[in-house]
């Protein structure tokens, strides 16, 4: 998510130019299935579990994890979405606009929430997400699933489920999509 915002942010605003493919579509798919199994294992089943995808990259991923959970356990898990724009700590420092409307139509009190995002970077988006979640009730536990952990943490936050650990340079960019994970650069238009 931090990636996409940087895309929009002047003067970094530019286009993503891919340099290397680090995960194929099949890799992402296998990682999604593994994450789903780990989620079920860690929580001893899927009772009182909800997935919350972070807008926008985490939302399709959360749905895929939910599908994988359904396939493996024959039990459907609710999927919500969360936009953290209003909880960010960089409002006023750079343009921050919500990308989509939050959709968490349940009281989270007593539930286990698995936050899902595509790329885990500084940790600031997840920090904002934790604050945002608190406004929807007191979750019993919050866990974090990410497809790519690219390092460069700025806060003491760690993921519970990781698709791939990917060492990166700070100025690089990671793009997760249907067709896999690409590593590249933002080039000024």
């Amino acid at each position, binding site marked *: 998510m931090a990636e996409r915002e940087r895309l929009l942010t002047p003067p970094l605003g530019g286009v993503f130019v891919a340099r290397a493919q680090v995960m194929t579509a099949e890799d992402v798919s296998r990682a999604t299935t593994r994450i789903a199994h780990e989620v079920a294992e860690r929580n001893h089943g899927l009772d009182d579990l909800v997935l919350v995808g972070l807008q926008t990259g985490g939302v399709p991923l959360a749905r895929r994890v939910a599908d994988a959970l359904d396939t493996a356990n024959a039990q459907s898990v609710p999927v919500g979405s969360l936009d953290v724009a*209003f909880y960010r700590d960089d409002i*006023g420092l750079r343009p921050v606009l919500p990308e989509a409307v939050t959709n968490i139509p349940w009281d989270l009190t007593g539930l286990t929430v698995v936050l899902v995002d595509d790329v885990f970077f500084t940790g600031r988006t997840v920090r904002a997400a934790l604050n945002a979640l608190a406004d929807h009730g007191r979750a019993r536990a919050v866990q974090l699933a990410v497809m790519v952990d690219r390092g460069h943490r700025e806060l003491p936050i760690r993921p519970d489920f990781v698709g791939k650990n990917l060492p990166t340079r700070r100025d690089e960019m990671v793009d997760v999509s249907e067709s896999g994970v690409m590593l590249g650069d933002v080039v000024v238009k």
Partner: protein
Amino acid sequence: MTSLLAIEDLGADGIREVLRLADSFVEVSERAIPRVPALRGRTVATVFFEDSTRTRLSFETAAKRLSADTMTFSVSTSSVNKGESLRDTVETVAAMGIDAMIVRHRSAGVPWQVSRWIDASIINAGDGWHEHPTQALLDCYTVRQALGLDDPFPGLRVAIVGDIKHSRVARSNVAAFSALGARVTLVAPPTLLPPSLEGWPVEVSYDLDAVLAETDVVYLLRIQAERMNEALFPTLREYSALYGMTRERAGRLCASALIMHPGPMNRGVEIAAEVTALPNSLITRQVTNGVAVRMAVLFRLLGAPEASEALVAHA
């Protein structure tokens, strides 16, 4: 954009951006705890030199739901009554340390003048007969929400009925709806139209009954007795008979037509009491949406970085 003085400041893209942003704030407003920390530490002052119920409450609620601090100035309890000038008054409020000032005044152009005196973002909450931009934004939002489309405006037929001449709401709505591509028709007796409509992107009709069947949105304006120094129409009853939204007229609208009014209403004059309760009347929805739309405006003004600072920070 650092201030919102008129719809023109936003342009069509800016209006669309505010409407999209408002979707997020509608969601926030529907939560059990309708508050986000987006503008924590910011201070918003409402400085109203003219009476208001909904606009002021709406702005203050919007600011509070964004976790901003609010400061309230009303002329009736202020040193304006001791003869303090407009400039001294707003500079005093600004000197307390504010990030935004929401200004309403009976004279056109006051928010613009104030924006030259102080550094805070200025939001025009109504200046004389000139503009009331946040009202137009919430009206556009309400239409968009009621029609359930992302962009229902191209070709939408909007009739604005009544006291156009004295209405800042009409001016802002003409600007906003037409910028979005709607076709606006003004419906009023000649005495309640401005002396010149040159340059207004509107059609004009003196006959409400003639336009009823061909209208998607009927926007009724309040008869502003407080701004009328002369007899512009014979009696309220005659106005109501010719231009009021009666039960019977509401029945002649297309089934999907929407009825709107900015409030406060003169029930039985421009709108019949029973019409306000019809399912296609959006009047209370306008008020509800006003909070979310004003949150969007405040967030857009105060949440954005100073352009130059942002460049330095990211260079």
